């Protein structure tokens, strides 16, 4: 019997061994492996997302520019249980064929890890009521409410930017994992830059669901649920009045207007033309408009105010005057003769008719080229410089401090830096230090390699208006303005030199190149520019600020292919100034206003 009693021990041993095998496998499944917990959550928990209203955007006077309207998406939840799905009923509900539904389901499930997909985006109001009513039979579908943008003032499209479905690329870069596929995100302009403020915070309610997809009670008694937080209202510096006005003035022309409040760096208006109306890019309209505008030959999507670069032309003489005075290269009393231009060797920089020996004030007033050719020589070839590189870099450093040749760093993206070449650039062309001011003479009158964006031109105007400093131009005006926009940038030019230069700019309007656009009662200071354009007609440029004392507005306007600065850019600038300061509904110069608004200048 001992033999068989051993067998009983063997049987007991075997029972324990098999039990241990079960316990080990359970340990692997339950404790060591995470994948079942993940699968379980995916199968049995549905997150119902509550989308908060996006923050409003209001102008500097509290006027609402952008608000929201309700929009609805029909979403489908995965895994999709085909067994319980009544295809025919569903087809009737959404008015599709079974093939379309199958196809849509396939597209909605972009990846097998997706828990939900977009089935119909932006359901119209009448469809919404109908579908919503019949949807209870299809627990795997649900409506998601989210808001679309609506525009009380249909202006400033490029500045405001637009909101649209997040792209795959943006999803991949979403490190906080805030967004889900099919959700919306600010794509450009302020909508993009201040996305994290505007979007608020999504709310999330976790529900248990059963094997048919029907929702049951709150998961974990709602302990993990969160409430949605409405997006922050974005107060921006735009003035709806002049933004709208500027868009009318420049309509039919190619170019841009940038107006800045000098004391703060706040952008009052940023106009670019040709443009589009922001509601064309509301989510419901985006599909039909985007590709049309993106491929339009006039490139209406480009924000010329920050991304187009132009030689500043004669407006740059303001900068040259300031550097010359600061460097001691010239004094307010320095005079250079101008005999119809500047002549050296075989080179002539032509000039137009004016009194023969201008000083700096008069040179600004009459836009004398010869004066600045001479001034440039004096700035670059001072005795203390060992070679041209030192002189050039000294000059260039003034430009850089004024925000030229670098991005200003405003709060809409895509801004260009303009172009202020390095000395190396000329070394390469002419040989190491084997060049002098004559080789680069065109830059002294704002031509040649020098390129600025309209915003940089407006910023020069603001800097002069402030007599020597500026704030980075920006739009945000909310309570917590980022430090980058409240830092004063001194440009390194003494206050007294501005008196001389500002007098010259004032004279431009009283009896200089811009005399015919002056407005009684407002002391505007300005400078015209007519930029030679090798590709076609000259660009018309004007920079200005007003009033002369305690300036309220600094502005730059570029009108492409429009000819003289005084004929197009200057009237537009001064009309803008008039509107901003007087805020009258009727201009004192209705004829000029009418001409600006109604003339179309085709791009050549």
């Amino acid at each position, binding site marked *: 019997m001992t033999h068989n009693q051993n067998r009983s021990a063997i049987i007991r041993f075997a029972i324990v061994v098999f039990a241990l095998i079960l316990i080990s496998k359970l340990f692997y499944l339950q404790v060591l492996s995470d994948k079942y917990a993940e699968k379980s959550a995916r199968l049995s928990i549905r997150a119902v997302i509550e989308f908060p209203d996006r923050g409003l955007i209001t102008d500097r006077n509290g006027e609402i520019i952008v608000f929201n309207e309700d929009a609805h998406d029909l979403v489908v939840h995965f895994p999709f249980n085909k067994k319980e799905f009544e295809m025919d009923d569903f087809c009737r509900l959404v008015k599709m064929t079974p093939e379309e539904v199958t196809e849509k389901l396939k597209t909605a499930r972009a990846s097998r890890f997706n828990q939900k997909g977009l089935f119909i985006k932006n359901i119209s109001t009448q469809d919404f009521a109908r579908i919503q009513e019949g949807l209870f039979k299809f627990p795997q579908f649900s409506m998601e409410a989210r808001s679309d943008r609506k525009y009380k003032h249909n202006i400033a499209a490029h500045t405001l930017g637009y909101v649209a479905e997040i792209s795959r690329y943006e999803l991949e870069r979403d490190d906080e994992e805030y967004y889900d596929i099919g959700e919306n995100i600010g794509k450009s302009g302020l909508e993009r830059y201040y996305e994290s403020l505007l979007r608020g915070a999504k709310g999330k309610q976790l529900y248990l669901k059963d*094997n048919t997809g029907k929702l049951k009670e709150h998961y974990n008694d709602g302990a993990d649920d969160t409430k949605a937080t409405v997006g922050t209202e974005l107060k921006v510096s735009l003035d709806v009045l002049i933004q709208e006005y500027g868009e009318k003035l420049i309509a039919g022309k190619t170019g841009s207007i940038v107006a800045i409040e000098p004391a703060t760096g706040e952008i009052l208006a940023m106009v670019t033309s040709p443009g589009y109306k922001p509601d064309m890019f509301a989510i419901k309209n985006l599909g039909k408009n985007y590709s049309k505008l993106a491929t339009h030959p006039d490139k209406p999507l480009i924000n010329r105010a920050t991304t187009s670069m132009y030689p500043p032309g004669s407006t740059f003489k303001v900068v040259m005057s300031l550097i010359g005075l600061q460097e001691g290269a010239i004094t307010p009393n320095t005079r250079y003769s101008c005999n119809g231009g500047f002549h050296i060797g075989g080179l002539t920089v032509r000039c137009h008719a004016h009194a023969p020996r201008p000083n700096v004030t008069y040179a600004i007033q009459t836009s004398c080229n010869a004066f600045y050719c001479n001034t440039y020589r004096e700035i670059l070839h001072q005795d203390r410089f060992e070679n041209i590189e030192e002189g050039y870099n000294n000059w260039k450093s003034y430009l850089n401090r004024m925000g030229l040749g670098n991005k200003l760093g405003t709060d809409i993206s895509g801004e260009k830096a303009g172009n202020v070449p390095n000395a190396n650039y000329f070394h390469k062309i002419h040989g190491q230090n084997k060049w002098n001011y004559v080789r680069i003479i065109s830059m002294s009158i704002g031509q040649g390699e020098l390129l600025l964006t309209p915003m940089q031109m407006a910023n020069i105007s603001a800097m002069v208006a402030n007599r020597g400093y500026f704030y980075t131009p920006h739009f945000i005006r909310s309570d917590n303005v980022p430090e980058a926009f409240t830092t004063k940038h001194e440009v390194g030019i003494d206050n007294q030199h501005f008196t001389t230069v500002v007098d010259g700019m004032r004279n431009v309007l009283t009896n200089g190149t811009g005399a015919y656009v002056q407005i009684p009662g407002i002391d505007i200071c300005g400078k015209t520019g007519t930029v030679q354009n090798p590709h076609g007609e000259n660009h018309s440029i004007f920079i200005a600020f007003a009033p002369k004392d305690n300036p309220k507005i600094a502005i730059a306007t570029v009108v492409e292919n429009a000819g003289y600065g005084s004929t197009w850019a200057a009237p537009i600038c001064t009309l803008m100034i008039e509107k901003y300061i007087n805020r009258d509904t009727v201009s004192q110069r209705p004829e000029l206003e009418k001409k600006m608004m109604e003339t179309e200048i085709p791009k050549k």
Partner: protein
Amino acid sequence: MSEKIYGQSRVDGITVLLYLLLVFCGFLAIYSSSHGSDNFSFDFSTKYGKQIIWIAISITLGAVLFLMDVRFFEAFSYTFFIAWMLLLFLVIFFGKEVNGARSWFAIGSFRLQPAEFAKLGVALALSRYVSDIDTDMKSLRYQLITAGIILLPIALIVLQGDAGSGLVFFSFIMVLYREGLSGSILVIGIIAVILSVLTFAFGFIAMIAALIILGGIITAFIYTNTRQLKIFWLVILACIGFTKAVDFGFSNVLQEHQQKRILVMLGLLEDPQGLGYNVNQSKIAIGSGGFWGKGYLQGTQTKGDFVPEQHTDFIFTSIGEEFGWVGSTVVIIIFVLLFLRISMLAERQRSKYSRVYAYCVLSVLFFHFLINIAMTINLAPVIGIPLPFFSYGGSSLISFTVLLFLLLRLDTNRENELDSDY
């Protein structure tokens, strides 16, 4: 213990305690998987309500056994056996078809599965036959009759279309092993299982080729004498014959869904939507339980009815999900304690009949326990057999209870037995 009632020992309290513990845990799991809503209402028309009734009936029947003369069962062992075999046979013709198997008698709303009770009949008959003083375990006749007692119900149940329940009867090999069946039969059994699995995996032709090549290699390298070689090649030939039989049986006897289940279980067929669906859902429910579980009535998979047949064959998933690894392990430990206790009870019987019967109980319970839990975690194919004392259903609970309590009844009478075999 020594107190006598009519010359009887006391009922083994430990076994009763373990039994009640398992039934209680089982009820908790059934309640969880079938209570539907969140409020703790109670309703006898629900699954858990009915289970209460089954529990009451089972315990009553268990108690009634103690009022009966213990010799009654031994005397009527064969009668029981024949009666249940008859029922198994009749159900093939008069049964109600459920899930492709004709294994239920339906009288009104009341349903009875004779296969569940047949285990008791076979256990009694086997105990009676094996313990019979005339039975010579060495003789072929003895072996054939023993095999017949086990194989007859298997054949009848397979004919009902419920091969899974039929497999249970193979567990009686454990009894025969304890009573002296040669260990080499077990070895042959294991080899047979390995050969079967390989045949499913690689097919009949490949298996023949492999066996012949293997034989050739062994013949070439381990050349001994001609007689041994002959025997060796006879074994190879037997293997080939067996392989052919398995192949034939697999494709002709087993139904298509059973073939698939086996292939899915062996990892030879991927099918998470179809047959693998149950196991996949079962693994998700158990696996998501984690170390401590999600808490009683908090199982997301259980609440959402994700596991098909959760209250019956997959009841363990509810334990796994809501009580985690700790709870699962505790349940397994309770089962193991019960098994060890039964084995102890078996060894203390003076009557061979009682001992054999005890091992019959042990082998049936252990097989159900092992295969049921193993199938929920994908260690065994999905064959529809219940987890003893846990799974919802009157037939299984009553039959397991009677099976166990009869052992307790025999155990109370152990002092009155004098067995010639000792």
